[in-house]
């Protein structure tokens, strides 16, 4: 009996170990299936050109999902990532316009944009970790506040981005689209960040706040650090939104907030904190993008698209959860 049962147990054990090390494997599997499905419905959708378009459109969601992941590490949540992205979007659009739209003005605006994102993150961290307000409600409140600021800066959508900005974002350099350079830079940045003390500390706080506190960790500072990191990545997401849409819109990020949360979960991270990977969130953001393109390529009537899209995301979540449960139970 042992000779029969031990190999399967062994398999299950190593599968579990594999999932423990790479919790984003289910997401990777779903991504592969979706790529195949896209190819079946519209072979053209797997062309280099189409995939470039996919990355160009969904790089922003990838960055927002990454932003969300860092706060979720610590069992917090940030319902204001979309609003931060909106605020940064209109800030840099207005700044670039005022500074003349040249290369230097673009760089200056981007610098300010990162600082705005950082400041928003610090505000969130302060109200959640220092004032100890419930993260889900407090960041909902700050999201309204940030959106309000965005509306003050640019009351109506539409101010265009300087040509140099969106030409660069949508451009191709040495035969490779700019967004792929950006994606590569993102991968390196995420690799380095995963090895930092802050990443480990965030996970420790998410695993058990009391245990972290009683190990002498500065829990409040760590949580604020997570929100600050989140704010910076939301700003980077705003740069991509701006590059993709080439205009300012004070409400552009709002609808992306909950997609970022969905991506975190789909990517195998635990909303209860202490467990997860940013790689999973990035893959999951691509999954959401592929679902949207699949719904389109499958010829879904336009008024049914949201319905089908919602169902597909639910299905993807279910597959991910089922696979993970088998591995971790």
């Amino acid at each position: 009996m042992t000779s029969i049962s031990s190999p399967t147990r062994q398999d299950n054990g190593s599968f579990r170990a594999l999932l423990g090390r790479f919790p984003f494997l289910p997401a990777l599997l779903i991504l592969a299936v979706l790529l195949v499905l896209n190819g079946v419905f519209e072979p053209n959708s797997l062309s280099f050109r189409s995939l470039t378009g996919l990355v160009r459109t969904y790089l922003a969601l990838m960055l927002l999902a990454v932003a969300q992941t860092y706060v979720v590490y610590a069992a917090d949540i940030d319902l204001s990532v979309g609003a931060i992205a909106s605020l940064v979007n209109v800030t840099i659009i207005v700044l670039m316009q005022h500074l003349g739209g040249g290369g230097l003005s673009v760089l200056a605006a981007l610098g300010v944009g990162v600082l705005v994102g950082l400041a928003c993150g610090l505000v969130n961290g302060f109200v959640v970790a220092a004032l100890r307000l419930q993260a889900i409600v407090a960041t909902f409140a700050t999201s309204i506040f940030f959106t309000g600021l965005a509306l003050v800066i640019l009351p109506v959508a539409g101010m265009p981005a300087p040509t140099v900005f969106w030409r660069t974002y949508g451009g191709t350099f040495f035969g490779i689209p700019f967004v792929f350079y950006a994606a590569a830079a993102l991968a390196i940045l995420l690799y380095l960040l995963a090895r930092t003390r802050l990443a480990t500390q965030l996970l420790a706080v998410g695993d058990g706040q009391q245990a972290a506190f009683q190990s002498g960790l500065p829990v409040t500072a760590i949580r604020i650090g997570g929100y600050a990191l989140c704010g910076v990545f939301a700003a980077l997401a705003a740069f991509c939104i701006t590059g993709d849409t080439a205009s300012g819109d004070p409400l552009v990020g709002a609808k992306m907030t909950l997609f970022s949360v969905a991506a975190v979960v789909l990517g195998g991270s635990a909303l209860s904190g202490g467990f997860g990977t940013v790689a999973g969130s990035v893959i999951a953001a691509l999954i959401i993008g592929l679902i949207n393109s699949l719904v389109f390529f499958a010829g879904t009537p336009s008024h049914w698209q949201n319905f089908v899209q919602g169902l597909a995301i639910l299905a993807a979540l279910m597959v991910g959860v089922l696979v993970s449960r088998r591995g971790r139970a």
Partner: protein
Amino acid sequence: MGAGRTEVARAIFGADPREAGDISIHGAPVDIRTPADAVAAGIGYLSEDRKHFGLAVGMDVRANVAMASLERFTGRLGALDEAGMRDAARGYIDQLAIRTPSDRQEVRLLSGGNQQKVVIAKWLLRDCDILIFDEPTRGIDVGAKSEIYKLLNGLAAQGRAIIVISSELPEVLRLSHRIAVMCEGRLTGILPGGAETSQEDIMRLATERESAMEPVGGEQ
């Protein structure tokens, strides 16, 4: 439970606010307001409830051993020295005989006794000279118990101050050099350890005044 032993320990460690009293280490007063202060002063606290207060159970042995010493392993750009953390963890796995398949094993998969050793390793790596053990053998099987006793004696022999909180009188008598007895939140007496003291002596102090039955803090 009732006597106030855990409350005293948590107050010393800065985990709960202190209402009165001063803390001195080697005669020098120290200001401890948070566990971070206590850890900086060389105090480590091993809670009775390891899973909630001592360990990041979903993380691996390596991260848990290094948890109180992360500054030491932080290099350029805030990057952690994983190789250094691995070596430190493996060193303690050998030294304390922690039974784990590797330093990458999740701590929640270890037995209670081995989890306890991971917490001890965490404080030893941090160079804590004062270790407060709150019911160190509760929920640990008999074999692991004697191993923990051996470990505590070894740590004391290295010159570390070990404070053990325990309700098991044989354990208290066996381990302690000095026994501080508490009852209903008050210190009711300090007894010498070893053969000079009997369980009855401790019980008398532990039940002094009124009816509380929860005895004993021991100090070695």
